[in-house]
């Protein structure tokens, strides 16, 4: 090949790289596949995963069962070795799968339009806030104070450069929206209002439908897509934009990533939406076909004036969610969601039997997680639990300092009675 292009040695093609910028790559020599697998396996063996050490963490990222069919589909190499479907004629498979994902999200949220993914729930929220700024002149974006530090920080970052200020509102005695506090803060200068349901405390908040009446500014709702199988669609409750993390729909936790940023909005706003969208169309024979559409909103065309800079998203995770949703179907999803509530209630009840522990902190409907108040610092508690072979819940201190003595405990269908019981008996022992 070298002789074909008239060069004698490999480096000749790098003669345009000046000496002054040359450097070496001081990495070790390569390894055989077998050795790589062994070496990485050896390192990963230091992990203690949720199958070994039962975990009570959640807050947006959940240990649900991933059906084998989901894995199988996303392991089809035609899917996962392909690029973004720029050429629709050779990408109908991915395009249709993503259109189906958008359709499922659209059903769940009650909104006609969904994009085919953002990076994760947190960035989806950030993009939603930015979209509000495009839809609206207001200068204040309102979000709940009950929010993870990760989401809060991402949200702040995504508002950089929009000129919009972030303001936080509180919660009430039952863990739902503090309507009075909110009322005070909703002014004519509102750019957008964000509420989560279920919220960080795991509470399913009956007050959220009221929000629509409080402002004309865009309303953003944060959801758990699985919980939506039981709940009125946010679109019906007046949401303009719905965001959430879809990792719970058929993807492993993966130490937090990739997630799946769910993003849906009203049809009338699609042209202000961030991210890639797949649209229905026809081919030259008039047959149904799909393609990426509304691309003039996007960075590769609109460049500096794009609705977002996003390019690579998490398409394959969206396909996993689509398969997961069809695998369960409506009735299966309802079952699974109920099972998660039942599991939560069981754990809540067991723990409420322990003296000195308030479980749950808020008397209200919950999904699969709830706050408990402990007589010891949650961080300390987790250290103790670790030694006993458990990964405890999320201490609130770093997220909602006012609730510093509380821990968010999450349970899913992956916890059977035995796991819950032994966890509770360890709690009893150490408290």
């Amino acid at each position, binding site marked *: 090949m070298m002789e074909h*292009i008239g060069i004698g040695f490999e480096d000749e093609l790098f003669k345009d790289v000046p000496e002054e910028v040359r450097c070496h790559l001081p990495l070790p020599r390569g390894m055989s596949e077998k050795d790589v697998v062994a070496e990485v396996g050896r390192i990963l063996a230091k992990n203690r*995963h949720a199958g070994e050490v039962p975990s009570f963490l959640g807050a947006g990222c959940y240990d649900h069962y991933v059906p084998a069919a989901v894995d199988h589909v996303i392991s089809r190499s035609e899917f996962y070795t392909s690029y*973004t479907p720029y050429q629709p004629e050779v990408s109908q498979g991915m395009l249709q799968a993503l259109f189906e994902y958008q359709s499922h999200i659209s059903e769940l949220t009650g909104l006609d339009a969904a994009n085919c993914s953002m990076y994760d729930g947190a960035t989806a929220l950030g993009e939603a806030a930015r979209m509000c700024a495009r839809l609206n002149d207001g200068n204040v974006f309102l979000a709940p104070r009950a929010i993870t*530090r990760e989401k809060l920080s991402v949200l702040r970052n995504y508002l950089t*450069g929009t000129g919009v200020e972030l303001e936080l509102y509180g919660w009430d005695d039952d863990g739902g929206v503090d309507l009075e506090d909110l009322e005070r803060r909703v002014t004519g200068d509102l750019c957008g209002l964000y509420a989560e349901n279920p919220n960080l405390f795991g509470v399913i908040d009956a007050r959220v439908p009221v929000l629509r009446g409080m402002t004309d500014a865009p309303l953003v709702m944060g959801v758990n897509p699985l919980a939506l199988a039981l709940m009125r669609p946010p679109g019906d409750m007046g949401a303009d934009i719905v965001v959430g993390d879809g990792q719970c729909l058929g993807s492993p936790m993966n130490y937090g990533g990739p997630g799946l940023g769910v993003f849906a909005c009203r049809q009338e706003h699609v042209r202000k939406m961030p991210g890639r969208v*797949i649209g229905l169309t026809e081919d*030259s024979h008039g047959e149904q076909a799909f393609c990426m559409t509304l691309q003039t909103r996007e960075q590769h065309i609109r460049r500096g004036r794009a609705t977002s800079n996003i390019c690579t998203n998490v398409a394959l995770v969206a396909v996993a969610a689509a398969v997961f949703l069809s695998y369960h179907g409506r009735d299966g999803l*309802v079952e699974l969601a109920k099972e998660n509530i039942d599991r939560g209630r069981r754990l809540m009840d067991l723990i409420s039997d322990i003296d000195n522990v308030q479980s749950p902190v808020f008397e209200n409907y919950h999904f699969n997680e709830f706050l408990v108040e402990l007589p010891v610092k949650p961080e300390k508690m987790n250290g103790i639990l670790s030694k006993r072979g458990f990964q405890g819940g999320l201490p609130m201190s770093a997220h909602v300092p006012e609730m510093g003595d509380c821990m968010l405990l999450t349970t899913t269908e992956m916890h059977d009675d035995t796991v819950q019981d032994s966890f509770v008996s360890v709690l009893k022992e150490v408290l």
Partner: protein
Amino acid sequence: MRPDRRLIMERPVREGYPDVDGYVPEGMERASLHIPKVDEPELLRHYTALSRDNFGTDSGPYPLGSCTMKHNPKYADRLASQPAVGRMHHHMEEEHAQGSLDIMRRMERALGEISGMDSVSLQPSAGAHGEYAAMLIVKAYHASRNEERDEVIVPDSAHGTNPASAAMAGYKLVEIPSGDDGCVDLDALDAALSDRTAALMLTNPNTLGIFERRVKELASMVHGKGALLYYDGANLNAIMGKTSPGAMGFDLVHFNLHKTFATPHGGGGPGSGPIGVRAFLDDFLPVPRIIDEDDRLALDWAMPRSIGKVNGAMGNFAIVLRAYAYILRQGGDGLKGCSERAVLNSNYLKKRLEDHYEVPFADPRKHEFVASARKLKKDKGIRALDVAKRMIDHGIHPPTIYFPALVEEALMIEPTEDETMESLDRIADVMISIAEEDPATVVAAPHSAPVGRVDESKAVKDAVLSYRRMMSLREGSR
């Protein structure tokens, strides 16, 4: 329509809604949801059929310029599919996650070596996300020095994410044209630079596949004005082991693990877009940082100057892991060899095409090059788009088209190191035969794809993004 292309939701859902009483507050109960349950046999047939209508690197040559469509090695997927990867929550006690943290730490170091940067954060979720994080750092840096700089300079050949990311961070964009040699016009740069300049975003080799030889000079111009120099790492596959952003004088860089380090593109994602910075920007990197603490690894959130977070968790660990495995497999020499072969392949293919397509600008190229169908369009009415669609009929994925905009009827071709000479010849033969073919055949292509040419304008006009919308329009039209 083939029965297996029917939408999966075109199936009935039982009437009524399952009882959900007592599970959610009164008045909040859902009453309908059109998501049919599809039994596994049908579910698998549906998605297997869909997959067969999709083209990936395992299907054939995929010389999609700028996208670095490397083969995705299977050992990396095998490693990523174990519970020690999947069943890990990012809020875990650090002592439970020493394995994940160790992988991340090693990966930070490896990327530091490859890029010549001092510190690396794996948090951004993709290339554009890395750019955005980097722009936030640029902003925080200048702010920390009480400097008000509100402009970012971007060459006209830059990838769209560059201006978009800068704009998202609130910067004004200053676009500078490329010179006749396809490189940054240093005079134009000089004119654009000012004490308002926060940064220049650049990739090298640039999107034409041309190495900016005067990069050092350029760097001192930028630095001379107190601005920072940002490296778009999407083209790193061209230079590993030969030079590095650090050696060239860049201050910040993002990586596309899903390009240079062979992780799957996944039909659009997930990818991973770590960033690297020089030591003076260290403090601004996203939290948490991985640190050593009593013989083990820990996460440090106490970085007061940090930009905070850009991702809800720790980055795309499942992708980082794959890329780390790939780096281990290749080693330093292997990565250098990848770059050498990628550049060799690109130059060979360019050579083979040169007599049939215009290939503007002078030799040599790095890992990619941009050909033009300008003459073909003039002479025979065959546009870049038509060439692309016709390639499909021959089992070759089309190149990137109409980018960069500075080349008319651009065909941006990046074969990567994974194509064999035979495969390169096949690409060349096909492209040459198209240039010589009856234009009528070409403009009507593809002829043997799962669908005919797709009407993209109708999609824009209708903006039907969901089955729900599709059905409500259908009902409306009745």
